């Protein structure tokens, strides 16, 4: 087991220890490797928290459906004939086979391929059987044979979340201050936003909380991603000095409550929503000026400035990431064991974006993000390396998350945002 640490006893937890006076914050490496922790997380976090399911733009029309695995559960997310949104467990009430086996489609109902049981797209049992095979009141007396509904499905803006706990607080209360981030990314365009077709489904041989930390870690960027920045300064045109001179040095960390947090800063890359780079040329400059002008008229100058020129990395507790950086990515990450993560990443963009701007946005995305980007694979290497390093936890038991703890106003390259996550994690995990 882990060694004792010299911290004040009142702040002591099994996995998370905080000494506010000295400005020390430590997390036990056992939290990243233990099977018992993994099982406790399923019970206390993934079965209790609001989890991201999908975005309205993925189901544009009535009867549209998609299938998705959320926290180990195969689900159907669909709109019924009346256009209402539903979340069902994707399993036949008869013997359990998956009833919707395609990634997405448009369907009035679902028919299980095993014995042919059928369901309307509002989940209602709709199988025709010869008289006398089943009782007359089959499924009507507390023995439901409808598709099982996920206990809670709620939305904020066009982001839909589910909760497996019927007694959970409302999504609105749960999201608390983090709604600001959903508002900001929803307001990038006057025409609404959409999830771009295509998903990057990949895995990482590490604990999921390593990717949570990495997703809003401003401290590692320069060191880990040196090759990306070398490329970037060649790609954006002009000199690094010119790019740096434009930066105002804003650097913020937001504690949104309930474990949600974000960092905000300003980087040298171009932003399709308002930060021009020389490589985009005069036409690109005009495009960007028009986007900024429209933003200023619609949301006012201060918010337009934040939307166009602020780079934000946000984590919604426990595992939704929205990074609004050189492009916007929506990312979910689920543990399938203590040392393996299933990651899904989508690109998020304005509806009706002109093709050349869409291409520019997707190029920006791929330069940095995802399994073939110039940055993400090096993050993956770092996370997997840490997981291997935790094999030494018996002799080197603690991670340090103390950076910037004694500052009045932590910066975007400090670690306060991670401490927000860990405090909520500890609140849920450390209780008896």
């Amino acid at each position, binding site marked *: 087991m882990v060694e004792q640490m010299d911290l004040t006893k009142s702040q002591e937890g099994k996995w998370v220890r905080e000494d506010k006076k000295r400005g020390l914050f430590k997390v036990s490496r056992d939290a990243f490797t233990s099977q018992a922790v993994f099982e406790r997380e399923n019970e206390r976090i993934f079965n209790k928290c609001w989890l991201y399911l999908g975005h309205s733009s993925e189901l544009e029309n009535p009867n549209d459906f998609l299938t998705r695995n959320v926290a180990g559960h195969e689900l159907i997310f669909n709109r019924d004939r009346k256009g209402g949104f539903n979340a069902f467990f994707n399993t036949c009430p008869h013997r359990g086979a998956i009833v919707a086996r395609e990634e997405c489609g448009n369907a009035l109902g679902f028919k299980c391929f095993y014995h042919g049981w059928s369901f309307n797209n509002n989940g209602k049992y709709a199988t025709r059987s010869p008289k006398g095979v089943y009782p007359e009141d089959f499924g009507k007396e507390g023995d439901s044979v409808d598709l099982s509904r996920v206990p809670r499905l709620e939305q904020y803006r066009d982001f839909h979340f589910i909760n497996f706990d019927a007694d959970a607080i409302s999504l609105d209360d749960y999201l608390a201050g983090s709604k600001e981030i959903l508002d900001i990314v929803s307001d990038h365009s006057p025409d609404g936003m959409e999830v771009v077709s295509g998903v990057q489904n990949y895995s990482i041989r590490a604990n999921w909380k390593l990717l949570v930390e990495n997703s809003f870690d401003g401290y590692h960027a320069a060191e880990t991603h040196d*090759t990306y920045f070398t490329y970037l300064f060649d790609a954006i045109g002009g000199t690094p000095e010119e790019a740096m001179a434009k930066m105002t040095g804003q650097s913020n960390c937001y504690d949104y409550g309930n474990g949600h947090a974000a960092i905000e800063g300003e980087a040298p890359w171009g932003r399709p929503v308002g930060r021009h780079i020389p490589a985009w040329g005069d036409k690109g400059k005009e495009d960007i000026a028009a986007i900024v002008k429209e933003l200023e008229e619609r949301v006012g100058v201060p918010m337009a400035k934040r939307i166009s020129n602020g780079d934000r990395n946000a984590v919604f507790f426990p595992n939704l990431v929205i990074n609004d950086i050189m492009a916007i990515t929506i990312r979910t990450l689920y543990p399938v064991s203590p040392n*393996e993560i299933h990651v899904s990443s989508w690109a998020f963009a304005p509806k009706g974006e002109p093709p050349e701007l869409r291409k520019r946005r997707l190029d920006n995305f791929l330069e940095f993000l995802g399994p073939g980007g110039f940055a993400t694979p090096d993050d993956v290497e770092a996370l997997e390396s840490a997981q291997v390093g935790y094999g030494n936890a018996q002799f080197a038991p603690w991670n340090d998350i103390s950076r910037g703890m004694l500052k009045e106003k932590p910066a975007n390259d400090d670690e306060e945002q991670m401490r927000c996550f860990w405090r909520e994690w500890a609140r849920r995990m450390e209780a008896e």
Partner: protein
Amino acid sequence: MMGNANLTRSADKAEAILNRDVYEDFLYLEAQLLDEWKLDEWLALFAEGATYDVPTAGAPDDVSSSEKLFYISDDYFRLGHRVKRLNQKTAHSEWPRSHTSRLISNMRILGSDDSGVHLRSAFVTHRSKGTATDMFCGHHLHTVKMVDGELKIVAKRSMLDLANLRPQGRVSIIL
């Protein structure tokens, strides 16, 4: 550009089709240079203005990187930087370098038009690093052309015939 539909396009200016062993040898050479991490020599197989892309696992051959999210969609500039990056020790994902082995098979000459000769080949690539060995399988779509007396790649698209990148996780090597 890659599919059968365009094979008759500009047939009068179509690139001349050479013997199949020329193309097979060329693809084997490409695979060997990548296996041996001779990336500058590999890049020299590409014509100026060439492209390299890897759509997401399971995508159709004619998918467009202007509309869909890919893993890689390199123009010639970015491809050059991909090689420059992979030649550095600070490309952490590939340092220390992974061991790779590329099997190329089932090559077919799909046809020819003014953009070049279209080749389809099946691949199985293994990448081994640390305690993990991962397998990538799929098919390459090459468009090749004679430039100043040398065969060059003008477009390479690597299609992953996989449902997802689990457990492979990344395409930090060149497929």
